[in-house]
């Protein structure tokens, strides 16, 4: 069987729809993972132990098992206890929480790495503990952590392919559908890979721009 990419254009509409879904999932999950990541980091560092300990177990669950399994559980499991999430939402939540845990680790380290002198200077001016955290420490920590979080978001794009297992017609599933009709796996997987790569390049470019902008405030 020889390669024949001429079958691809017929399915371009299916593929492009898949690209759109992939972008939507990635955007949704990225935003979720960023804000929830900050929230998790603050819990992990400052919450009392009876919140912190269960939280650590929860973190462990996300760190210690494959995303594939987590997606299954969120989609097919939560409904057993009456939480009915549409597949798209389940995918966004699964991916988002998974990466929120990773982002939280980064943000925690970054909060701890903010120079003690910063806290001292703020407290010396009379700012309270909360004010110091809110206006001085957390903004710096988040700023410092934007490049690695950017990397996480690019990783998230690629993991969005796994959301195909719960039936969201994103790029990978679209390619599989086209393959199911034409039985030409190589052509369609390569096409899908090319689209993923293009989205990846765009995200990297955006990341570089943001990094340049924040370089000043270091």
């Amino acid at each position, binding site marked *: *069987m*020889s*390669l024949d990419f001429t079958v691809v254009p017929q399915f371009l509409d299916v593929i492009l729809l898949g690209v759109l879904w992939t972008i939507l999932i990635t955007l949704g999950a990225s935003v979720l993972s960023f804000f929830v990541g900050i929230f998790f980091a603050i819990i992990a560092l400052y919450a009392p132990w009876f919140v912190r300990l269960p939280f650590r177990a929860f973190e*462990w*669950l996300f*760190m*210690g*098992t*494959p*995303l*594939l*399994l987590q997606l*299954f*559980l969120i989609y*097919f*499991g939560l409904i*057993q206890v009456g939480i009915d999430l549409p597949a798209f939402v389940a995918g966004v939540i699964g991916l988002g929480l998974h990466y929120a845990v990773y982002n939280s680790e980064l943000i925690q380290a970054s909060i701890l790495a903010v120079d003690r002198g910063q806290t001292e200077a703020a407290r010396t001016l009379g700012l309270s503990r909360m004010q110091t955290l809110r206006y001085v420490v957390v903004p710096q920590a988040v700023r410092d952590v934007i490049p690695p979080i950017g990397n996480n978001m*690019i990783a998230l794009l*690629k*993991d*969005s*392919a*796994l959301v195909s297992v719960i039936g969201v017609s994103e790029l*990978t599933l679209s*390619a599989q559908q086209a393959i199911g009709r034409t039985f030409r*796996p*190589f052509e369609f*997987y*390569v096409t*899908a*890979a090319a689209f*993923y*790569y293009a989205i*990846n*390049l765009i995200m990297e470019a955006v990341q570089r721009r943001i990094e340049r902008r924040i370089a000043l405030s270091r």
Partner: protein
Amino acid sequence: MDVDLILRVYPFFLQAAWVTIQLSVLTAVLGLACGSLGAAARLSRLRIFRIIGAVYVSLFRGTPALIQLFILYFGGPQIGIQLDAFEAGVIGLGVNIGAYMTETIRGAIIAIDRGQTEASRTLGLSRWQSMRYVVLPQAARLMIRPLGVNINALIKGTALVAAISVVELTYTAQRYIGSTYKPFEMFLLSGTLYMIIIYATGRGIAWLDRRARIT
């Protein structure tokens, strides 16, 4: 919760976990090899190697591992690469994680203060000698933890080879779900085993890291 079922089938999950472990170990070894070569290429004096290294990293980090695996396994034969599922799994995941490890290793090497190279070159050591005796021993310590992160991702990534018919933990769970209609029991089993494997690996990495730090 069907505890009896769990007790009846868990030995097969243990077998599957063993497959996952074999996959992980082989993938890690291949990944480290690709990562070392990749890092050497990216740090090479020769432009052509640097370009090859950069393209390797960019392509393999820029597309989903699942897609890479599909292309290798289903598409490979169309261009004359015939691998069985296990081989394809190891090669696909290994080359993929190797791209990440390339950056980890390179990062550790360039994190070593330039003054170290300057001091050793000043003493008359050659490029290779100063790499071998001064930079690499220091970089090796720096890379243990980040490589540990790569390996953690890799272990979880082995779940992807379920899609190409390697019967490891995840596909074992899926097959049993198919015949027993008991998804949660099966996921509990496979999830627990994943956590044990990952936890043990994490402890191993931490131990290595502590040992490396002592001197």
